[in-house]
């Protein structure tokens, strides 16, 4: 049975866009039920399994052309059904969520692992909805759902620091939600309650430009907050540092990928009319600011989590460089989606590897110095972390390079050379902090010598906890090298608009 035949067999099933979301939600519920019976480990496993299936299904939907079926549900989730770019990114959202749960979330307190896994499952489903929303209200609801889940996951660290970070995150989040609600109110209000993108688009054209701009900017800011772009970034470092590495993987990767998807869709679907051109200028300013701030602030960090937080701000800057293209075309959206996918994979692999180290060496205080000489003890996982960091820097032979390449190519075509150079120099400087982690892992000799410390941390053998980071690294490497061998068409196929 060749690959095509299998796909042919699966075709009818794959056409149901909401299938992945359904699987994920049901797995989440099952996980909660298992938690009730104190079968915590199985609960997490169920959620992980569900997410894996969802990832496979959406990958299938991305690869083979699917005819959009027009049932009631599809109208609201319309866009997800068309497969192509959205299914591709949805697959990444599910895959990273799967990796996050796959670690077994051992860094969380015993009781709360299954519930956290359930939250991640639901969050992944919400991510796909946010990604494929064709209605502004659906977008808003998904956004808020993700926000709430994020607050809970940050608080799942179970210590004073994570509580504090969660509380602060909540305060800023609520301000952003206020802005979002105001934006929705203005836009939908003025267009007589029509909240679907298509109807909204038409009414926007005839609306008073000032109000449209205000509403648009409100929404853009809300989404920029969710992405963690410069002016709205303050929660990112605290959240990534205090949240346990496993959940941080979900936050950094799949939530961000979904938000990027939603944001770009907002621009593509809603704001193509000339009235919104100035918005794009704002997006570019945010992009440059995020790149500069993110890269600079990350230089001084000693905690790996916090550093990854700041680097996330910079990475969002690169995304916005791609999104800030004035005639936003299918290629530029594909580029942004590709970048979101590669960044998400890199971030997920990195955090999952940190999860492995956190649970492996309880003495690891989360600092870069703490990782000194760890490569000799855990060569495989530190290799995975290195691949992830290189990918986030954008070094060739990793997926990150292609992401950055296409984003900057699009921006250059748009004549934004100053933005391209800021971005490129930013990504060069980024090696100053990514490289320091690699250097401490491989080159520094660990203070306690490199005898193999006994594994007292988690009660599970390291081999079991290591596989998620290895899978992540493998995907990143494969995606980096494959285009060299099979050409760039493969990349476009996965994220092309259909």
């Amino acid at each position, binding site marked *: 049975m060749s690959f095509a035949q299998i796909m042919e067999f699966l075709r009818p099933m794959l056409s149901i866009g909401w299938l992945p979301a359904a699987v994920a939600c049901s797995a989440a519920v099952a996980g909660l039920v298992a938690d009730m019976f104190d079968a915590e480990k199985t609960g997490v496993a169920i959620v992980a399994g569900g997410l894996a299936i969802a990832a496979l299904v959406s990958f299938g939907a991305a690869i083979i052309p699917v005819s959009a079926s027009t049932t009631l549900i599809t109208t609201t989730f319309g866009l997800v059904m068309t497969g192509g770019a959205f299914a591709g990114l949805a697959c990444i959202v599910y895959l990273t969520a799967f990796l996050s749960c796959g670690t077994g979330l051992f860094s969380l307190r015993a009781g709360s692992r299954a519930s956290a896994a359930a939250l991640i499952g639901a969050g992944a489903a919400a991510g796909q909805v946010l990604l494929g929303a064709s209605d502004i209200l659906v977008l808003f609801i998904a956004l808020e759902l993700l926000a709430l889940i994020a607050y809970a996951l940050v608080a799942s660290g179970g210590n004073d620091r994570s509580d504090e970070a969660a509380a602060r995150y909540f305060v800023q989040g609520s301000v952003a939600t206020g802005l979002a609600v105001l934006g929705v109110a203005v836009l939908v209000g003025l267009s007589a309650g029509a909240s679907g993108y298509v109807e909204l688009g038409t009414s926007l054209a005839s609306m008073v430009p000032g109000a449209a701009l205000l509403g648009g900017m409100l929404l853009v800011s809300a989404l920029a907050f969710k992405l963690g772009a410069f002016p709205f970034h303050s929660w990112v470092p605290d959240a990534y540092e205090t949240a346990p590495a496993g959940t941080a993987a979900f936050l950094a990767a799949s939530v961000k990928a979904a938000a990027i998807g939603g944001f770009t869709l907002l621009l593509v679907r809603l704001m193509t009319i000339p009235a919104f051109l100035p918005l794009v200028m704002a997006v570019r300013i945010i992009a440059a600011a995020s790149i500069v701030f993110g890269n600079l602030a990350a230089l001084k960090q000693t905690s790996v989590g916090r550093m990854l937080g700041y680097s996330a701000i910079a990475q969002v800057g690169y995304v916005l460089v791609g999104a800030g293209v004035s005639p936003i075309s299918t290629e530029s959206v594909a580029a942004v989606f590709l970048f979101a996918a590669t960044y998400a994979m890199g971030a997920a692999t990195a955090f999952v590897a940190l999860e492995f180290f956190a649970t492996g060496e309880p003495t690891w205080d989360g600092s870069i110095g703490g990782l000194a000489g760890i490569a000799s003890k855990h060569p495989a996982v530190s290799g995975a972390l290195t691949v992830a960091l*290189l990918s986030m820097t954008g*070094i*060739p*032979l990793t997926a990150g*390079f292609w992401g950055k*390449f296409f984003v*900057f*190519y699009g921006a*250059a*075509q748009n004549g934004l*050379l100053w933005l*391209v*150079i800021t971005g*490129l*120099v930013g*990504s*060069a*400087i980024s*090696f*100053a902090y990514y*490289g*320091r982690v*690699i*250097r401490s892992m*491989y*080159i*520094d000799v660990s203070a306690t010598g490199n005898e193999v410390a006994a594994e007292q941390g988690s009660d599970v053998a390291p081999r079991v906890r290591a596989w998620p980071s290895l899978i992540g690294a493998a995907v990143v490497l494969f995606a980096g090298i*494959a*285009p*060299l*061998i*099979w*050409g*760039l*068409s493969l990349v476009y196929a996965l994220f092309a608009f259909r």
Partner: protein
Amino acid sequence: MTLLGLILLPLVGAAVAWIVGRSRPTAPRFVAIVTSVAVFGLAIAALVQVLQSGDHALSATTKGMLLVLDGLSLPLVLLTGLLGVVAVTASWAMTDRPGVHHALLLALEAAVMTVFLAGDLILFYVGWEAVLIPMFFLIGGWGHENRRHAALKFFLYTFVGSVLMLAGLIVVMMTVKSTVIGAPTTAIDLATQSWLFWLVAIGMLVKIPVFPLHTWLPDAHVEAPTAGSIMLAGVLLKMGGYGLMRVAIPYAPAGFAAASPVLGAFGSAGIIYGALMAFAQVDLKRLVAYSSVAHMGFVVLGIATGTALGYAAAMLAMVSHGLVSALLFLLVGSLYERTHTREIARFGGLGARTPRWGGLFVFAALASLGLPGLSGFPGELLAMIQGFGAFGWWMVFAAIGALLGAVYNLSAVRRVVHGERAPEWDALADITRSDTIAAIVLCVGIVVIGVVPGLVLRLTDPAVTLLVRALGGGS
């Protein structure tokens, strides 16, 4: 298919060496020597194929990659193959994690081959960056006291340069609408060319390194292990010169024409500066590193003249510097392994104590100062007389640089090989057999190219004439 083999074979060898290294520490060096010799053999096979092929070029394409081997890249591919073998023999007695060391060495060779064989701009850039990773780990892993700083500085410095180059390449790809390297069908307008040339060339100038952008080289060399230094000096620096001739000049000829006086000035300044710095050094390896800056100054000078003979001078100077600096680093490395110090002041009268090493070092010093009959001279002579044609009396500085070249080389010989025998080294063993074989191979190469430079020039002739005709440049 030989072209693809040139890239894949070292990669496979690297993987095997790494895996074997984990179990039996003595095995990886045999894997490495076999692979590197095989790669060198493949390079010679490619040479034969190119000579037989009508248009003096060989290309191979897979769906994703386009590989091209022609006059410009052939001598450098052969040089990489040869230095690969020399690097492995130089690190024959390596006991500190040999498996990973040889794997990184072969991976480095594969990455460099990709750069020289790349037919399209994306692959060229991928190879250009991929070289940094193994080198970073080589410097970091096997360096000496200051390796942490040197490794990161090396990576960051060249990475910022090459990232700017990527910006330039993106603009090139955008305007020319194709990623295949070669004279552009639709010439880029003159206004953009002026700044585009510098944007694309900056990454290469950092790599060469040109005079003000060179401070990463001494730190990287001093800290790199012997094999790493041989590959770094012997081959990595050539990527800059090759990149200029292959990518920067064809795409921005007008920009290059406007920039050539500045390039020539920096080239000549590099010759003097490198020689002066080498003369002031206390650390032997740092002295050789600065000598690389001086030699590569001739390459930049040759390229800046923009004439066929100028490019020939650059190619000759690059190949000769590859051999000479590899020999010097081999000798300095073998001395360091036995004495564990690189301080020139502590050496003295080694000629008496270790005659074989002393003789080779004197030969290397003479080759390094560009003695006629050895490989340095043809390149330097051509660069100077063509430079005179293009820049006139500025060549006085280049000539003074050549003189300073003699100063630092001979003063190094006087302080290390000649003079009273330092009592400290009475029990010093002479150079090991494996290092001697590698050194002899390099010496033969140096003499052959010195006496018959036509060998290299015959290879580069078709490609250089093509390049010059494309630019409408002088003879």
